């Protein structure tokens, strides 16, 4: 049953790994966008 067990585990694990990688990169990008947005707002204020 090792192969069959791995099949089930993989079914959950692969999407979780994929989602985690994407989430990490989105979080980084979100931070960059928020910083850029803050800079733009300050420039308009000045």
């Amino acid at each position, binding site marked *: 049953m090792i192969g069959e067990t791995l099949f*089930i585990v993989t079914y*959950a694990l692969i*999407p979780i790994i994929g989602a985690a990688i*994407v989430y990490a990169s989105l979080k980084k990008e979100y931070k960059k966008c928020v910083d850029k947005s803050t800079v733009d707002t300050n420039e308009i204020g000045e």
Partner: protein
Amino acid sequence: MHLTIYAVSVLLSMILYAVVGVYVGRKYKGLENFFVVGRNAPTFFIVGSLIASYMSTSAYMGEIGFSYRGYMVIYMAMIVVANLGYVFGANYFGRYIRRTEVLTLPEYFGTRFGSKRLRILAGIVTVIGLSCYLIAVTQGCALLVQKITGVSYAAGIFIILLSYALFIIYTGSAGTLFVETIMFIVFAVMSIIVVPSIINAAGGFPDAIIQAAMSDYKPDMYSWHGPHSGASPAYTNNVQSFNFIVKYGIVWLAVLAVSPWQTSRYLMAKDEHRVIRSGMLAPIAACAVLIFLNVAIVTVNNVNPDISPVEYAFLGFSIDYLPTWIGIVVCCGIMAAGISSCCTFVTLVACSVTNDILPLCLKNFKTKVSNTRVTMAIFAIVTAIATYYQPPAVMWICYFAATWLAVSWLYVGFASVWSRKLTENGAFWAMLTGMVVFAVLSTISYFGWMTYNDWFIPEVAAIVCSIIAAWIGTAAHKDKSEQEIRYFQLMHEAPKELYEDKTAWKKTMRYPFIGAAGCTLIAVILVFYYYLPVREAFSQMGIL
């Protein structure tokens, strides 16, 4: 010809799709609307269209026949690897392509590297790959028409040609997107509601699964590797079974990430948030639609283990053994899956020919809606004729087409977005080398001139050669044009929509969790639906 209730139902559904397609399509005028629906599509439509163009008669006739033969686990394991293509493709390729506002993928490659020859080559890869795929999908649809009406195979092809060509030529991508979404709903609902009926007809749950797992006629149907003996096994050892997961996992990952018929959907998205969200939802939809049905189809062997050709396993069983209304739903669902892919392929090929190949090869040729429509009509007729002369092999022709695109585009696609070093020369030779190496290795294998070792995977070899060619090509011509440098920078500039709307960002950030949770839920259901019954069967057989 006999007009059965199944034939009438399918005919009515086709008329409905045509009416909706024409109604929606008449609202959209102009080239950009015809090609990319004004770049205004919401998440649900993108997901629907992604799945509808991915799943075709290959999924419901070819691959389901493969599961029926007992290779369900390797097929579904391949699918879960491939689904990463949605996740990575949307986030690391699709959204960047969308920023460039091109109409087709070959146009993207050509403009990104400032290269006419690369654009033409990408156009040719698209046309050849999608033509093969269209032939396979049309074969599946024609077999279905033949089964439910009793007409000849040739007449079936003609009916299919009429059913999609008439409205898609008029509506272009707008009609495709809307009709595909409806078709997605139809076959997704079908894939779920038919499962209990199949299991009940095959002996009830969990007895049907236990009985199939203990079959002597096709042993190991629920084992991870599938049958290696018994009635005509496709693979004879574990390495071959594992190779299927690896090679087609990579191939379909590439297809879902960078192929024209998947990523072109992102060009239609309203904004980048919709692209990212679609990439996270599509794997759940793909898994949910496929997994339960494919586990169930193995139990059909309890009732009839000798359905031939295996492409009829699902369709034939539904008509012959299930209630009439289920049979109707199955016929309409399979036809919806097939026609939706036909619509996508015909539209994409015509757009590539009129936007990327002819304007660069013929003087005075202008890309217009009228030219694209004529190209669609010619292409649809030519592929219908080719379908007639090509012996039916729905699954394997689709896999050839998918591999053809994957080996040519996988590296160049991602590197075009993420590599500062890759030059036009490197990209061109990478695409050409991947394509040629795969064609040569496949030809050698097809004609039996050489038998490859179980550990040698031609598809992976072609991708590796493509990467090496990119390095050598780039090293040979390191200079980059102004356009290449500017275009690369342009792609990496976040559009205003990304940093102006924090609420949309926060909503998008939830989608990776939704994606992971959805797939985990499916895995948990699989424990009860597949794992425990199979464990019980193995226990009764004394294997555990």
